[in-house]
């Protein structure tokens, strides 16, 4: 190998390399690396926002599903409540009518009872008056002669003995 003047190649290599390095650094590597990095960031951002959008979509879907479920539950509850109210009203009405009926019946019975009592009392009075009148008439007739009076006393005494 020809070792042609080492200083020549060392000098020129150093000079050319350093100039070349700084030129490339300023005009090539900086813009290239910047562009590559910028694009990578842009891609990452795009991916991230896509991911976020997907998550948001999932949230929206979940929300609407939740709302639907809630609405359904509410409808169910309302229906149940209505049914309960209806049952209650019916039951109440039944009970009230029964109470009312009972009351009417009781009143009627009471009235009947009092009427009956009044009637019985009236009948008793009339019967008593009639009995007294009859008894008066009978006694008047029976005590019109002496024999009959004596017989009566004897009968009565006989009755007493029997007792």
């Amino acid at each position, binding site marked *: *190998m*020809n*070792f*042609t*003047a*080492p*200083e*020549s*190649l*060392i*000098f*020129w*290599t*150093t000079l*050319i*390399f350093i*100039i*070349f*390095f700084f*030129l*490339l*650094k300023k*005009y*090539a*590597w*900086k*813009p*290239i*690396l910047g*562009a*590559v990095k*910028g*694009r990578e960031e*842009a891609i990452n951002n795009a991916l991230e926002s896509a991911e976020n959008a997907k998550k948001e979509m999932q949230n929206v879907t979940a929300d609407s599903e939740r709302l639907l479920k809630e609405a359904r539950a509410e409808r169910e509850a309302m229906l149940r409540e209505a049914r309960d109210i209806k049952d209650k009203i019916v039951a109440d009405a039944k009970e009230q009518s029964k109470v009312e009926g009972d009351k009417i019946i009781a009143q009627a019975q009471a009235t009947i009872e009092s009427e009956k009592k009044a009637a019985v009392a009236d009948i008793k009075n009339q019967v008593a008056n009639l009995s007294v009148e009859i008894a008066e008439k009978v006694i008047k007739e029976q005590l019109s002669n002496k024999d009959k009076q004596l017989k009566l006393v004897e009968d009565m005494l006989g009755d007493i003995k029997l007792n």
Partner: protein
Amino acid sequence: MMIAQKSIKLITVLVFSLFPLFAAAEKDSEGQSDDKEFDASELINSHIGDSHEFHIADWNGHPISFYLPVILWTDNGLTFFSSEKFHHDNKGQHVVEANGQEFVRYNEVIFYKNKFEKLSEEEKGAFNFDARPLDFSITKLVFSMLMASIILFLLFLAVAKSYKKNDKAPKGIAGFLEPLVVFVRDDIAIPNIGEKKYAKYMPYLLTIFFFIWINNVIGLIPFFPFSSNLTGNIFFTFVLSVITFLITTFSGNKDYWSHVFAPPVPKALYPIMIPIEIIGLITKPFALMIRLFANITAGHIIILSLISLIFIFKSIFIAPISGVFVLFMSILEMLVAVLQAYVFTLLSALYIGQAVAEHDHH
């Protein structure tokens, strides 16, 4: 379609394997006229080394070259002249006069003529700074490096500009180069240096990765203005590894230096441990320098040796075999080109990562 593809492949292989055949035939006729013994080591050395002119081809025995400027720091100040003035002489015979001084060239090293004549054969080396002016010539490798830098700069400038118009997915040249940039970031810088600190070293790592890669590939293209063995030159790899070493050294945090100067061993061992740690600092860039240089130079030597086989055996029947092997080696070297660029960048990132790492204190 499949058959067509296969036959195209076959034809390509045949044409490539026959190329050396024609070359051999030409060279043979030249060899007879020159009556010169073929020297494979000289051929290989001149191909993997540096030179003051860019040899393109030989035409009728005359070399055609692209002449590069010679810049010398002499006793009389800076001196410029074209390498054409040496008239392809590399044996120290043709004298060039410039700026009132006389120069000769011997094995691509330029000497003062008067001092050169007194030198013995061993003293005529590139490290004999007494007998030669300092040489800051734009040599073949410097030319190649400039060209590579300009190509890369324009390429990445185009990529950078394309982002201004297009902020969506990259297309065209950016679509091809961006994955490589992202690869250096995600597979070299971040795992070795760490998420927090890698950004500061990204420009350096990207620069060395693409710079080494393109120079490796340029070295594999076997014609002008490519074919120079820049990354297989130890001075080039020396400069790159020194830069990595400097970055590592100046990035080193407290933990890094305390590991060097106050290693977690008994104090009695410090006289042994501290020198070892300091040697350890230097061996890392040294390994970087040798690894790249040796890998690339070895690849070039193998390809050149396979081609030289034809001339050593002086038989055109070797040519197809050589051709197939050269084709195979060239494809392998394409892989090595990117692999070595990757390894250099990876190890640089690893060393920087060690220097900036935050250790948990046990």
